[in-house]
């Protein structure tokens, strides 16, 4: 049995006991399934609880008894009510309800709105937390295509290819992550209207998908054709940077630039004696990296691998060429 932390076990127990107290007999497997524990963990926690109660621990114990495959509950006296929600739990439920309420298809009288009402006293639901799930207008059309399982044609500006590309896709999810909206879609062969088999993630068994930044979709054309979505779970949104197949780069930055990198998943971060930071990052593409480096500016340098050493220089020089008629200002004479 793995070692579980005391705080996790306590949290679990303080919600498991009240749930049990409302029932007379419950199969152990049902408790395990509901509370995401193994049978052994359920038995261990409940046998421990059965020894607990009020001093002098002779007459006033938590009245639970485990027998074969079942948990028997006696007189519910202690721990009959669950602990209130913590601030973070409150916030997560509140945000989930708010966000889901804002999605298309929620009409007045929807059960979700009734839940929000009922929880309003419990959660101090008020106007202070606003969830804006709107996103760009195009997200609405994409959402419809997801729900209808409709094939759409995309004209898309690919940063990696630095060109406009055409794709036929089956949209699967639309999501926002760290400032941008994305379409997660399965690429489809236009000749056969079947999914292009890509490298599915064999470790997790998830479907092979492509990601498109919604603000780079130049044009989208519904086809009126539909496709049954491939079976299998979809990758979790927001984790795609974490593929081990992406190359890594080590960047050294002034600490004042830390916030610009903080929004990306970072493999490791080391603080040097002088306060500068060495950061190892996944590289989405050379184009992505050169933009990041030029945005970071002189306070950042690439330590390695060597193939990336010149990317910032070259990219900066290429942009500078558009301003070839101007010369860098002479700061030494104090001119503005």
């Amino acid at each position, binding site marked *: 049995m793995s070692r579980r932390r*005391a*705080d996790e076990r*306590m*949290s679990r*127990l303080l*919600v*498991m006991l009240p749930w049990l107290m409302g029932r007379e007999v419950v199969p152990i497997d049902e408790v395990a399934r*509901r509370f995401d524990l193994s049978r052994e963990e359920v038995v261990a926690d409940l046998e*421990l609880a059965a020894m607990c*109660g*009020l*001093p002098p621990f002779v007459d006033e114990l*938590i009245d639970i008894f485990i027998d074969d495959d079942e948990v028997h509950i006696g007189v519910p006296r*202690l721990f009959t*009510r669950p*602990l*209130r*929600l913590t*601030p*973070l*739990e409150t916030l*997560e*439920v509140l*945000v*989930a*309800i708010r*966000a*889901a309420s804002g*999605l298309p298809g929620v009409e007045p009288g929807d059960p*979700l709105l009734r*839940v929000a009402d*009922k*929880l309003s*006293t*419990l959660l101090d639901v008020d106007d*202070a*937390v*606003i969830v*804006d799930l709107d*996103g760009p207008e195009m997200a609405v059309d994409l959402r419809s295509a997801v729900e209808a399982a409709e094939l759409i044609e995309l004209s898309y500006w690919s940063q990696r290819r*630095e060109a406009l590309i055409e794709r036929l896709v089956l949209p*699967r*999810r639309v*999501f926002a992550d*760290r*400032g941008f909206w994305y379409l997660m879609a399965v690429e489809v062969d236009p000749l056969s209207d079947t999914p292009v088999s890509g490298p599915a993630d064999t470790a997790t068994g998830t479907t092979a998908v492509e990601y498109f930044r919604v*603000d780079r979709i130049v044009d989208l054309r519904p086809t009126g054709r539909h496709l049954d979505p491939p079976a299998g779970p979809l990758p*979790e*949104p927001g984790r795609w940077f974490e593929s081990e197949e992406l190359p890594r780069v080590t960047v050294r930055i002034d600490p004042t630039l830390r916030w610009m990198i903080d*929004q990306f998943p970072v493999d490791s971060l080391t603080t040097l004696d002088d306060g500068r930071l060495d950061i190892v990052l996944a590289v989405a593409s050379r184009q992505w990296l050169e933009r990041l480096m030029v945005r970071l*500016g002189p306070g950042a340098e690439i330590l390695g691998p060597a193939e990336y050493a010149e990317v*910032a*220089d070259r990219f*900066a*020089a*290429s942009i*500078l060429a558009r*301003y070839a008629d101007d010369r*860098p*200002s002479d700061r030494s004479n104090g001119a503005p």
Partner: protein
Amino acid sequence: MADRVERLTNLVALLLETREPLSLRQIAAELEGMYPEGESARRGAFERDKALLRDIGVPIETEIVQGGSDPGQTRYWIDRKRYELESFDLDDEERRALQVAVAAIRQRSVIAQQALWKLGAEAVASAAPTTVVIPFSTVVADLREAIERRAVVTFGYGGATRRVEPFGLLLRNGFWYVVGHDLDRQDRRTFRIDRVEGAVEIGEAGAFERQPVVRTELFPTDPKLIADADEVMRTALVRISPPRATLVERQVGADRVRRREPDGSIVVAVDYRNPTAMRSWVIDFGVDAEILEPEDLRRDLIDWLSGMVRGR
């Protein structure tokens, strides 16, 4: 020595059921053999237990005895009303709606799963067509509490210390923002919570009147419009080459296109308060964008890029 979870469970039961607040000595006596004998070891173990319980949300009350036989002594108990979740019922439809909402928005969150159990539901799997990747942190929860208590918050941001009367939290495009009244600039401001440096200090409750957060369109989340310092609003003219021209026109609106050129390039007017964010925005286009005006913004970009090419 008893298993720690056993001791914690007994401690919670004791403090919930006691009719009077108890001192540590009384607690140790009642939970016979569960706390170490020595005074400082016992105190240490108890403080750790208290901290753990508070972290998981168990509210432990303390009072300092005023008179009587033991003045100055601390006593403990749990107020049942503060401990217990008020009872309420969800019908099957409502429970399902709640589970689906949490599955769509907070899939795989252990915290949300815990919350669902407390509310009498359980986590379900779901692949909702639209979702948001929501970064959660204790800073977000702290700020929400500050908003509720109407307390001024102080935090580091962009290298400076900011003091704000917070009145709302806004989740947009996958980032959290706190909106409020900036006390030093005497104006409404938006702050991106993941850019807050260090911890947030929360002041005294009831320090100001709450402003309802209406018209969220008044709270910009475009980085070009969120200023670190005291910057005024300015407008830049930027030329964008095709095929990105279409994308930019969609982003800023056709009414911001000042000129259309024969090759398909457009010149757009872009508002900004934050020159750094403006520069980043332009850099992202690479060779497909050129700043035309204002002169100092164009100058700054040239100097910035030249510094990178020359200085290596």
